[in-house]
């Protein structure tokens, strides 16, 4: 049984980020991190998305950092928690 890190986040895409494939780029770079989209709303100027990230902790944190690098605002919903799975 492998320890998995899970982190619930709200992602906000604005300033043109909503028109760029930021998530696709991240999934390509971090194929071992699971992106579970729970809800999303995208409008002309802004998009928000609720995502449950899971995987090895350093990889999840790497994916979040990469999203931030691309200009996506990442707000953890709660503190990240370790679960077994």
């Amino acid at each position, binding site marked *: 049984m492998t320890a998995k890190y899970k982190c619930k986040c*709200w992602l906000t895409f604005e300033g043109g980020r909503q028109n760029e494939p930021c998530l696709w780029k991240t999934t390509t770079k971090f194929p071992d991190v699971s992106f579970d989209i*729970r*809800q999303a709303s995208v409008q002309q100027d*802004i998009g928000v998305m*609720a995502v449950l990230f899971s995987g090895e902790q350093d990889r999840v944190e790497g994916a979040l950092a990469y999203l931030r690098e691309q200009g996506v605002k990442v707000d*953890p*919903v*709660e*503190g*990240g928690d370790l679960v077994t799975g």
Partner: protein
Amino acid sequence: MSFIKSLRCKECGAQYPVEPRTVCDNDFGPVEVEFDYEAMRGKVTRQSIESGPRSLWRYRDLLPIDGEPRAGLRSGFTPLIKADRLARELGVKELYIKDDSANYPTFSYKDRVVAVALTKAIEFNFDTVGCASTGNLAHSVAAHAAAAGIRAFVMIPHDLEEGKIIGSLVFGPRMVKIRGNYDDVNRLCSQIADKYNWAIVNVNLRPFYTEGAKTHGFEIAEQLGWQLPQHTVVPVAGGTLLPKVYKAYREFITLGLVEDNKPRFYAAQAAGCNPVSQAIEQGTNLFKPQKPNTIAKSIAIGNPADGYYVINLVNESQGYSASAQDQEILDAVKLLAQTEGIFTEPAGGTTLACAIKLIESGRIPRDESICVCITGNGLKTVEVMQGQFAKAPVINAKMTEFDQIVEQIAETPPQTTQPPVKA
């Protein structure tokens, strides 16, 4: 008797047991306390409420506690003032001020939400309570925790006004200043609640905490003689108050305690931190988070937790929003003080300044009833008013000099008084 049914996700409707919880597991939407209104019918009446204590606990059947109230026994039931002098100044017919600058014990509306959250924290057997705060909440958590004998940790932005810091420290909490703005503090508090298993009132007790804000709305309706104002102007920070005043009005309508006059809600924000007002004015229901830059620090929340719901409820009620510049905020603080004798903090100035804009633009009709929600006391933030007034004249203790001064200043409006200073 408790009328609580469950916690319910505001997005997908998923139900959860009554427990410390912030969001839904499915879609991360906020959860809210759901009550059994059918069971309340005939039991929660105007008479049952009127026979309760002169505090927010007269509405305890509509609050999410199981046992007896354990905090804030003298909080709430603040004055609703018919502000005739201010109404004349603004050219409106019927204007009310709901004055939580007089709330007990820490002079802001936060004493309402903390009274409920602390009671719930005790029911859940937490030994430590805490909060992320722009000042007023820290005061209230510290004071209520001291009175209840519970350990308190308050986390605040590092650049908060000195008066607000002292106003917390006097109650003996552990205080931590966090480098960053309120949103940074709030994010850290989410992790603290998770790691230390503390009751962070506006994080893991948020569903219970926010219900306390309903009492602001219940009181408006009861004190207005069991009717609703047609227009209610509410300051928006994290977005707790407006949806809960809305919910309070709806609950009274559902229970048949007031008539549904289709009340409209208006969001008031400072121009230096107005994500919600901006979204409403742009006709979108998604707001863009902002970096706050305003003197109204107690409402400077750039990424409001319940901002989305504020936008939807304002639109649903056919209300609107406004934003006020810093000088307009200060002018409104002075206007309220000099017409009604109420000294509010910049958040209250923001609300009044926005109400004035909404009246002048015709969004709020001049001949209908208006309630302006004042949520904090100006004595906590006197430093922001520095430089706003002419200096008082200094004279020798001689009647002739006094006579001269009286002639010069007696008929001059107070704000523009510029008398000569005599040695």
